[in-house]
C-alpha cells in the first residue's frame, strides 16, 4: 500500500516537473536565440506576465484557446519590438530597457485586470487537458510522466533540437551566433545587423509570450496579479547556468523545474525544509554554478552591447 502511494507521488513529482518546465523551456529557447544575437533581454519576466494576462482576457472573452494563444503571442511580439527599438535603434542600455518593460507589464496588467474584474466574480475556467500518446502513455511510470502531457509540452521539447539545428546547422543561425560575438563581422560583410537583432528579439519575445499563455491556460483556473512569479528571471538564469547552449539550457530548466516540483510536493514527501526555501534553491544553485564556471563562461562576447559603426 505504502509502496503504491510512494510510486504515485514519484510519478506525480516527475510529471509536474515536465509540466512546470514547459513555459520555461519555450521562453528559454526563444531568449537563447535573442541572446545569441547579442541582445540581452531582461524583460522576459514582464513579457511572460503580459502573455499570461492577454491569454486570460482573450480566453475569457472568446472562449477559444487558439485565439488566446495568438493574441498572447502578438502582444509579446509588440513588447519584443519595443525592446528592440530601445536597445538596438535608440541604443538604450539593455538592462534599463528590460527593467522598463518589466515595470510597464507589471503596472499595465494589474491596472487592466482590476478594471476588467471590477469587483465582479472573476471568471474561472478549466485548464487545457492532456493529450496522451496512444500506446506510449500506457508504459508504466514513463508513460504517465512523458506521454500524458499537453500538446504544447510536446512542442516545447521538440523545439530544443530544432533550435539547436537552427543555431549550429543553418546559415541564419551561424550569422546570429556571429552577431552576438562581433556585430562588426556581419556589418563589414554587408549583412544587416539591425534587422537580424530585431528579428531575434521579436522571436524570443513571441516564445516567451507563448510560455506565459501556457502558464495561464495550462496551469491555472484564474489570473492573479504577478502570475509569472519570477519565472521570467528563472529563464534568464537558466541561460547563464546552461552557458547559452540549447541542451545545457534545457538541463538547467529541467533541474529548476524539478526543484520547484519538489517544493510543491514537499508536504506529501514529508520534507522538513520550508517550502519557500526550496523555491529559492534554483537561484542559489545558479549563483553557485556561475561562481564555479567563472572564466569558462561562453557568454556571447557582444551580449548587451549596442552596436554602432566606428
Amino acid at each position, binding site marked *: 500500500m505504502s509502496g503504491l502511494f510512494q510510486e504515485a507521488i514519484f510519478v506525480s513529482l516527475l510529471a509536474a516537473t515536465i509540466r512546470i518546465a514547459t513555459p520555461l523551456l519555450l521562453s528559454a529557447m526563444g531568449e537563447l536565440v535573442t541572446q545569441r544575437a547579442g541582445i540581452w533581454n531582461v524583460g522576459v519576466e514582464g513579457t511572460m506576465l503580459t502573455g499570461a494576462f492577454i491569454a486570460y482576457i482573450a480566453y475569457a472573452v472568446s472562449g477559444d484557446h487558439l485565439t488566446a494563444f495568438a493574441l498572447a503571442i502578438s502582444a509579446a511580439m509588440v513588447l519584443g519590438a519595443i525592446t528592440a527599438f530601445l536597445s538596438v535603434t535608440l541604443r538604450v542600455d539593455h538592462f534599463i530597457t528590460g527593467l522598463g518593460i518589466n515595470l510597464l507589464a507589471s503596472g499595465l496588467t494589474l491596472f487592466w485586470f482590476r478594471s476588467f474584474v471590477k469587483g465582479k466574480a472573476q471568471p474561472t475556467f478549466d485548464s487545457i487537458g492532456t493529450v496522451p500518446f496512444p500506446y506510449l502513455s500506457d508504459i508504466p511510470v514513463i508513460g504517465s510522466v512523458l506521454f500524458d502531457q499537453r500538446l504544447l509540452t510536446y512542442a516545447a521539447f521538440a523545439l530544443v533540437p530544432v533550435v539547436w539545428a537552427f543555431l549550429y*546547422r*543553418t*546559415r*541564419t543561425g*551561424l*550569422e546570429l*551566433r*556571429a552577431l552576438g*560575438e*562581433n556585430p*562588426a*563581422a*556581419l*556589418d*563589414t*560583410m*554587408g*549583412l*544587416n545587423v539591425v534587422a537580424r537583432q530585431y528579428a531575434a528579439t521579436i522571436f524570443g519575445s513571441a516564445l516567451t509570450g507563448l510560455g506565459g499563455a501556457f502558464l495561464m491556460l495550462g496551469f491555472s483556473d484564474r489570473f492573479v496579479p504577478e502570475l509569472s512569479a519570477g519565472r521570467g528571471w528563472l529563464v534568464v538564469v537558466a541561460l547563464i547556468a546552461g552557458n547559452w547552449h540549447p541542451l545545457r539550457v534545457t538541463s538547467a530548466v529541467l533541474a529548476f523545474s524539478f526543484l520547484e516540483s519538489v517544493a510543491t510536493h514537499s508536504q506529501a514527501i514529508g520534507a522538513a525544509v520550508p517550502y519557500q526555501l526550496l523555491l529559492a534553491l534554483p537561484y542559489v544553485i545558479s549563483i553557485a554554478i556561475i561562481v564555479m564556471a567563472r*572564466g569558462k563562461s*561562453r557568454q556571447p*562576447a557582444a551580449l548587451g552591447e549596442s552596436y554602432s*559603426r566606428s
Partner: protein
Amino acid sequence: MTVALQASGLSKRYGDVVALDDVSLDIHAGEIHCLFGENGAGKSTLSGCLYGYVQPDSGALAIDGRPMRLRSPAEALRLGIGMIHQHFKLVGRLSVIENILVGAGGRGLFLDTRAARRRLAALCADYGVALSPDAIVEELPVGLQQWVEIIKVLFLGVRVLILDEPTAVLTPQESDRLMAALERMRDAGMAIVLISHKLREVMRSDRVTVLRAGKLVASLKTAETSPEELSVLMVGRKVSPSYDHNRETPGEIVLDLSDVYVNGERGHRVLDGLSIHVRAHEIVGLAGVAGNGQRELFETIMRVRPLEAGRISIDGKDVTAGSTRDVIDLGVGHIPDDRYLQGLIGSFTIADNIVLGRHHDCAFRKGPFLDRKAISSFAADSMSEYRVAARDSGTRVDRLSGGNAQKVILARELQRSTSLLLANQPTRGLDIGVIDYVYRQLLAKKAEGFGILLASEELDDLMTLCDRIAVIHRGKIVGVVDPSGTTPQHLGLMMAGQAVSGGDAHAH
C-alpha cells in the same frame, strides 16, 4: 589596362573637419595601387568611400566604366569590391570555416560546409597558407588571422581588394609573404589597393597616390619616384629624421627584472621567465609582434599584475611586493599603449588629467579639497611647455586629436617621473610631426639621466633611438642586440621566435 574602379571628385566632411577634399583616382585591374599618407590624411575615409562604408558628400564612383552609387558594403561586395580592415572583423570564438561562411552567401537553408572546405583548401594551396578549417580563430597567430580575413573576402570572388594597413601587425617576414601573395593576385588580374605609411611596402607597389590633409597631392608610377620624394610629398616639407644620438656611458641600473613569471586572465603564462634591465642614460628598445607580452610586461613593472615568481627592483629598491603607488612614488613615468583606455579619462578635462595621480600632492589641494586655481595654472603652464593645442585647460580630453591627447600624457608622466620612463607604443597612430616631438622628448630625458624602456612596432625607429634592443617573444626576451649591428630582417626572425645565431644574444 582597364580601369576597374574610378573615383571622381570625392569629398567628405565630418563637422568642421574636411576628411576628403575633391579626390579623383583610377584603380586599374592588374596593379597594386598604394594610398600613401600620414594618419588623418584621408586614406581610411577614401577607402571607406570605395567600399560603401562611408558615404561621400559629393563625387561619383564608376565601376568598370559604369557610374555606381555604393550605399553599403553589401553592394560593394556584390560588385566585386572587398576590404580587409586594419582591425580584423573576425569572430574569435568561431572556427576558420565558420568565419568564412558568415556572409559567404550560398543557397538553401543549411550550411554547405563540405563545398566551403574544398574551396578553402584550394585557396590555401594556391597561396601557400597553412590554415586548418576547424581551428578556432582567436587561438591563431595574428598573421594567420589576417589570412582568414583575406580568404573570407576572396571567397566572394572579389576583383578589387582594399587592404587598410595590413602589415601593421606582421613581422617583416610575414609582410614579405603577404606582399608576394598580393603580387600573385595582381598577376591574376585583380586590382589591389594597399593603404600604408611604410615606405618599404609602398616601393613594391605599381602606382602610388599620396594624400595630405584630405587632398590628393600626387599620383605617380612607383618606378618613377623615390622614397625621398614620397616622404617629402607626404609631409609637405623636408623631414630630417636624424636625432642627436649621444652615446653616453650608461650609469646605474634603474630597472631590473629577473626571471619574472606572470599569468594572464585566463591562467595562461604571459611572461615566462623574463629578465631585462635598464640603466640610467640609456634607451632600451623592446621589439616584438603585438601580443607577445609587451603590455603585460609594462603592467607588471607598474605592479598592476601579480607575479607568480621572480623579482623586480627599481632604483635598487625591491618592489616585487610593492603597489602601483610605491612604483609611482619612486619616480616612474608610464606611457601606456592604449592612451584612451589606460592613459586618460576621456570625459575629464585636460587639467584634471594632468594632475591625475598627483592630485593628493600638497601643491594641488587645500586641506581635503582640490585647489582648482593651482591645478588650472599648473595645467596651463604644462600645456604651453608640451605644446598641447586646445582652447584652455578646461577642454575635455576626448575632444582632442590623438597627438594632443598623447602630449597631455607626456606632460603628466614626464613631469612626474624622476628616474625611469616606460613608454609602450608612444607614437602609435600619431603623425610624423608629433612622432618627432615625442622622440625628442625621450632623448632629452635620456640626456638628463633617465633610463627608458621603449616598445614600438616601428623597427626603424627603435634602431635609430635605442642603445640596446631586446626582442620579446611569447613572454620571454629571446635576445638583446646592438642596433648598429643588426638589420630589420634579423630582428624580424627573432620576433618570429626563430633562434638566431651570431647575434650577441645577451649583450649587456
